[in-house]
């Protein structure tokens, strides 16, 4: 009896979280039901086919490019020794600090017809001028978005490779498995949950991206959603398009769960790091050159370009309000991260005790917020909140209490909740992959020592997943720093952030002036990312010796 209540607990927690996360999504699905048939038939005939094709190309492209970049870089830096390895290991995560929309305006600025690169070519090598591909195309969008988010795959794949430890790799090689055999038959399959985790993030982020694709003027579902809403004045048609997105995400997430059904990845203490093989000759040079090139285009060049623009516009743009913008960015980021982490831990913990189907489904549903364009999600939230507010004020009226305006709207409680709904999956993935360390035997051992209930959680479980919490927390924090549409829509008066400032300036075409808030934002994002690479990794894991 007792045990059945305990096991129900997991389901109750995860379905509670799912209810909060899904309320705005359900609202969107509901309003997508009653779309204007006239507008819908127009969209179906003239718009939808193109959107489907473009979105498929973009997502497939970004997933492939980030997989290729992330896995190869992680493989090189985890298993081999070459010049600069330590530096690359740390610095290849930093592109995460650059928002995709900032990466997009930097690279279009550099590589457009009127940009410095093509202008120089026309000047000095006119015969080559016609060879430039159009940067504002599907290919350009794929490259630039990939450069901004491949570190997710790199980070997760590195964790996967490291957690394997020496034993597996050496076992394979001692049995005569060659290097490639080991990579494809042992290493990659073993690291699959991590790599998939990274790729799912990439997939969702790309689906939800609006900022970058609109700089490229590359039409995807997101741009279609906004065009239906802003141009055709049809919120319902926008919701209908968004519903298609939601369904796509759920299908993919379900497929990924199904692929991983019955697989258990328990980490049985592979804490001896793999001994790295020293590369020599051509291999050594190629490895260093490859890593340097990726680092250069994904971080160094954009950072330098931003600094050049900042220097030009600093006098015009800088003012005392920047202190506020930075403080607001940090404050909202920390609040949102705390809420998201708390929820991520509860959710993955509830799923661990009893991984039955309904708990799993509820948990997966809670993670779909990441794939929705921010503004659409925010509209859903606003409607849910307005509905709640009218209930509250109505009840208060009946009790004879007069409230001044709304209770929730415009209050600071909304933004962190909304960030949680949007970024739960980002925090959840690292936390839940560390949960796999908590083998059932740990609980049995603890029970023998009479450690149960809350003490089991605080003394044994949380310390073991601390690293996952740090990684998840940092990724969420950086995401919130970069987040623009939700912040723009739900922030209370006076709560402008750096991302809001960037939006204000770029939407007026003021690229150079936008560089200052962009640089500040990148620096802000580098603090947590730096913590992850320089401090988080060097800490010795305290693993309780059995």
């Amino acid at each position, binding site marked *: 009896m007792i045990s059945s209540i305990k096991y129900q607990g997991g389901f109750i927690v995860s379905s509670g979280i799912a209810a909060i996360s899904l309320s705005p999504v359900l609202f969107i699905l509901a309003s997508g039901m009653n779309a204007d048939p006239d*507008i819908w038939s*127009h969209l179906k005939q*003239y*718009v939808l086919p193109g959107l489907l094709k473009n979105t498929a190309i973009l997502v497939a492209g970004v997933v492939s490019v980030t997989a290729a970049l992330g896995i190869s870089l992680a493989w090189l830096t985890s298993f081999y020794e070459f010049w600069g390895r330590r530096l690359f290991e740390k610095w290849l995560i930093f592109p995460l600090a650059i928002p995709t929309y900032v990466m997009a305006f930097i690279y279009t600025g550099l590589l*457009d*017809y*009127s940009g410095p690169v093509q*202008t120089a070519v026309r000047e000095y090598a006119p015969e080559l001028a016609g060879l430039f591909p*159009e940067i*504002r*195309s599907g290919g350009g969008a794929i490259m630039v978005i990939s450069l901004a988010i491949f570190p997710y795959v790199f980070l997760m794949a590195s964790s996967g490779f490291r957690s394997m430890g020496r034993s597996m790799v050496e076992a394979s090689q001692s049995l005569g498995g060659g290097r490639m055999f080991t990579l494809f038959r042992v290493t990659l399959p073993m690291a699959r949950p991590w790599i998939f985790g990274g790729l799912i993030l990439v997939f969702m982020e790309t689906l939800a991206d609006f900022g970058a694709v*609109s*700089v490229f*003027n590359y*039409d995807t579902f997101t*741009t279609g959603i*906004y*065009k239906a*809403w802003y*141009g*055709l*004045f*049809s919120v319902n048609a926008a919701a209908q398009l968004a519903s298609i997105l939601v369904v796509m995400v759920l299908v993919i997430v379900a497929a990924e769960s199904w692929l991983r059904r019955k697989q258990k990845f328990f980490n049985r203490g592979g804490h001896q790091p793999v001994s790295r093989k020293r590369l020599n000759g051509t291999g050594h040079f190629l490895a260093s050159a490859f890593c340097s090139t990726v680092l250069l285009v994904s971080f160094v060049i954009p950072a330098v370009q931003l600094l050049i623009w900042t220097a030009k516009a600093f006098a015009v743009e800088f003012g005392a309000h920047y202190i506020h913008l930075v403080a607001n960015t940090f404050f909202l980021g920390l*609040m949102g*991260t*705390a*809420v998201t*982490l*708390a929820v991520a831990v509860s959710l993955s913990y509830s799923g661990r005790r009893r991984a039955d189907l309904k708990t799993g489904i509820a948990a997966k549903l809670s993670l779909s917020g990441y794939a929705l364009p921010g*503004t659409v999600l925010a*509209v859903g939230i*606003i409607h849910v909140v*307005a509905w709640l*507010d*009218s209930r509250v*004020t109505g009840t208060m009226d009946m009790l004879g209490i007069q409230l001044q*305006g*709304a*209770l929730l*709207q415009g*209050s*600071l*409680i909304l933004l*962190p909740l909304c960030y949680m709904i949007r970024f739960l999956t980002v925090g959840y993935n690292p936390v839940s992959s560390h949960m796999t360390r908590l083998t059932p035997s740990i609980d049995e051992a603890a029970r023998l020592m009479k450690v149960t209930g809350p003490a089991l959680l*605080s003394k044994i479980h*949380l310390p073991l997943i*601390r690293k996952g*919490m*740090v990684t998840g*927390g940092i990724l969420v924090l950086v995401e919130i720093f970069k987040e623009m549409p939700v912040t*723009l*829509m739900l*922030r*209370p*008066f*006076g709560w402008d952030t750096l991302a809001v400032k960037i939006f*204000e*300036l770029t939407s007026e*075409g003021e*690229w150079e002036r936008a560089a200052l808030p962009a640089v500040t934002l990148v620096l802000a994002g580098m603090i947590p990312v730096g913590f992850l690479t320089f401090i988080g990794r060097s800490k010795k894991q305290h693993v309780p010796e059995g």
Partner: protein
Amino acid sequence: MTKIVTALLFLFIFFSGQAVAAPDELVVYSARKEHLVKDLFEKYEKEQGIKITYITGKAPVMLQRILSEKENTAADILLTVDAGNLWHAAQKEILVPVTSPVLDRNIPDHYKDPDNRWFGLSVRARTIVYNTDRVKKEDLSTYEALAGEDWKGRLLLRTSKKVYNQSLVAMLIATLGEDRTRSIVSGWVSNLAAPPYSSDTKVLEAIAAGQGDAAIVNTYYYGRLMKQNPDLPLGIFWADQSDNGVHVNVSGAGIVKYSKKIDQAVRFLEWLSEKDAQKIFADANMEYPVNQTVLPHADVRKWGAFKPSTANLARAGELQARAVKLMDIEGYK
């Protein structure tokens, strides 16, 4: 780690109080950017002692926000760019009709809602800009002429997703009819020298670099760019002077019907339509004052006088969805 998270959670709950507007302040939902309105709002507070609290964002999003907040909304005034957005807000019945002799005197009829629910506050012209090294003024005439055969591969445009182009095409439908507009848009698309750009500034830079010879942009973008870089080979051409006139649009405001301070809000709009404020409002963005007794900025006057279209801008809103569909069908991205 756990302690930090717990501490933050407490802090979060502590800070989750709500902000209610003070009795002597007005709340503006502004789709006009902060750096274009801030000084003016502060001036009003200094002069009249009424604080203007504002939040900036995208017009359709703000409208949606007011629609869901209803009586609970904090907004007294919706300030936005483009008549299409203003018309849509009026259409959704969130703006209250205002009778004000001051506004009637200061703002010409075609720059406001026929039912007085919204009022233009500054005028922007969307016209032709050309590369002075490659195009002679004599070769330019109307928006329609840019769809002709001799402009093949020479035209650059901003994306059809921007409301400025949606309003332009809507007004073409209003003045020239749907069929003629359809062939204009299809001609534009086949004359493009490069895929549509995401901003007017990018379009201007590309014209200056010689990727295309002419484009259709809002004049203040031209003004800003020339201020930064006076040597660019760019010139302004006033389109359609012998017929309908240059396509103009407004940024403007309306009073939210749920506001508890409608009288104060009206007084603020009146103040915005008077000489002093008009000067600041227009000059902040190199636009034209809507009040005809106020001269535009000296730099703006240099571009010469022009004949604006006098078709009522409410049409831009009424026909916007049709314009968007037409552009979709003709493949204008």
